[in-house]
């Protein structure tokens, strides 16, 4: 009996540091954002910061961000899924090793890596240099939306590969083999067995790529030549010029609600299990 009590107690107590932590460093800061977003410089309640999302410039930035992040999420998915399948076929040991190889670039600073893409993509950059060696026409993607998408795909691809790979390795090979033995074609096996079983991983991957892509401001600055204003740039500028904190908080609030809604829509598929190595 004594044992039982102490067990219950000690186990529940374990959550307290965490509860304290999220209250102090997640909930309170969010409340502050709400307060800032709903007031003006003089502390008067206003909805202006929220409604200003509707202005032409902000709307345009938001829609462009949405578009670019959706496209890059899709590309990441299309690249990552076959990759995860190939890795699964390599067996656990080799697969894990290659997964490490995918994560390794993330340990180099992402600003440096993104800047290096600039050197690669520039008009007189390395890629164009190589193309001209073979007398091929050069590419002109730097400072365009394409370069931003490339930057997003490059930076966030590992976040898509990892969760998909993690759910795929858990699928028992025997299930796939059984389906094949029962006469299912490769296509049927894929669409009726593999794909449905891997949806939680896909959803995790989409979340982990879409959200940071939607809100980035560094990639658009470095690879977009700062010609393209994304919603992340707008918010960052409001905060870095000092007087725009209230507007910045208001816009962040709208974006946050927006992300939460879209995530809630797909959350029922999200196992959240896949987001590990």
């Amino acid at each position: 009996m004594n044992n039982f009590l102490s067990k219950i107690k000690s186990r529940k107590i374990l959550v307290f540091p965490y509860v304290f932590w999220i209250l102090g460093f997640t909930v309170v800061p969010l409340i502050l954002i709400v307060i800032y977003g709903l007031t003006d410089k003089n502390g008067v309640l206003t909805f202006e910061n929220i409604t200003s999302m509707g202005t032409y410039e902000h709307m345009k930035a938001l829609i462009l961000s949405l578009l670019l992040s959706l496209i890059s999420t899709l590309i990441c998915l299309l690249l990552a899924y076959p990759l995860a399948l190939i890795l699964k076929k390599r067996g656990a040991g080799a697969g894990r090793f290659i997964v490490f190889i995918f994560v390794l670039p993330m340990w180099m600073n992402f600003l440096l890596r993104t800047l290096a893409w600039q050197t690669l993509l520039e008009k007189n950059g390395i890629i164009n240099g190589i193309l001209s060696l073979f007398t091929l026409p050069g590419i002109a993607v730097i400072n365009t939306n394409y370069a931003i998408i490339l930057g997003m795909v490059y930076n966030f691809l590992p976040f898509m590969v990892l969760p998909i790979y993690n759910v795929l390795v858990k699928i028992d090979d025997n299930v796939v083999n059984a389906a094949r033995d029962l006469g299912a074609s490769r296509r049927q096996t894929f669409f009726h067995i593999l794909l449905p079983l891997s949806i939680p991983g896909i959803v995790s991957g989409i979340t982990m790529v879409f959200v940071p892509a939607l809100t980035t401001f560094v990639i658009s600055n470095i690879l977009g030549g700062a010609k393209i204003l994304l919603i992340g740039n707008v918010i960052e500028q409001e905060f870095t010029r000092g007087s725009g904190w209230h507007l910045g908080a208001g816009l962040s609030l709208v974006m946050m609600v927006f992300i939460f809604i879209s995530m809630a829509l797909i959350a029922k598929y999200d196992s959240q299990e896949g987001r590990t190595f």
Partner: protein
Amino acid sequence: MNKRYVAYAKKAVACVLAFCSTTFLLSGCSLLQKNGQEKEAGSGGKLYVYNWGEYIDDSIVEQFQKETGIEVIYDMFETNEEMYPIISSGAAKYDVVCPSDYMIKKMVDNGLLAEIDFNNVPNIKNIGQQYMDMSKAFDPENKFSVPYNWGTVGIIYNTSKVEGDPDSWNVLWDERYKGNILMQDSVRDAFMVGEKKLGYSLNSTDRAELEAVRDQLIAQKPLVQAYVIDQVRDKMIGGEAALAVIYSGEMLYIQNEIKASGREDQLKYVIPKEGSNLWIDSWVIPKDAPNKANAEKWIDFMCRADIAKKNFEYITYPTPNTAAFELLDKDMRENKAVFPDQEMLKNCEVFQYLGEEADELYNNLWKEVKSN
């Protein structure tokens, strides 16, 4: 725990360990190198310096530490606008900061700065009187600031890609150079170009004028390759663009680089005839600086002729230190891109702080340009 996970765990832990051991190995090496060099760092207290990125010769910081025993904690910002809220909110306390002209005015107006005790800065005599006079635009009584660097903004052009020698901002609207123009990615610099092109003051607060400038900038946008957030200089050296708006301080670096690759005179600098921005970055001391006396020692140190010369040779931005100027080679003193003469500066203006309302107006119009 199955075997697969043991192997996996080993790999993971090995990687993390590798990372960490690299740190301590490398820092061990750097400690070895430093050993004996600055044994008394910290004995003279501390000094928190907040300066632009890559805006000082690191060895000068070390020399200062060695000579004074003051431990320097050195931090960097990327734009004036980024620096301001950090100082004004008191989020981080610095002893000595190096903002630009208009930002100094804003800080003075908002009571963020402490008066400098010039008895502790005897080397102020090295700073040329004309630069102290220029400073009066934002610090009318020369009480709060000591000039660190100055310069102009102009056009750098690639002679192999541009016909003739441009002398006007209009060339940045020339259709022939579509996709070959680099603009500065900062509100005031970008608007300055438009304002000067249209013959306005670069401190205009007139809404109609500014809207006209905005329209100019929007019209120019299709021709612009990028609003450069990173170095114009590397893009120009690499031949990425034909024309760019650039700070004169970058020119010496560029001249050295292209000289090394045997393309001398390919890149030239001009201050357009309509006039331009004359800027000064100065040392100031925030009001709540915890180590004001050390800050004054720092400023005095930076004004020393030998230090200013050494620093100039590293960062290549024109120095207002006339004693250091006299120490330079004749070639350098006559390099007009670096040290323009008064005639070339006649239409130039110093940025003023325009007040919060105008700030807002500039920012909103700039946002319209950027999102267009």
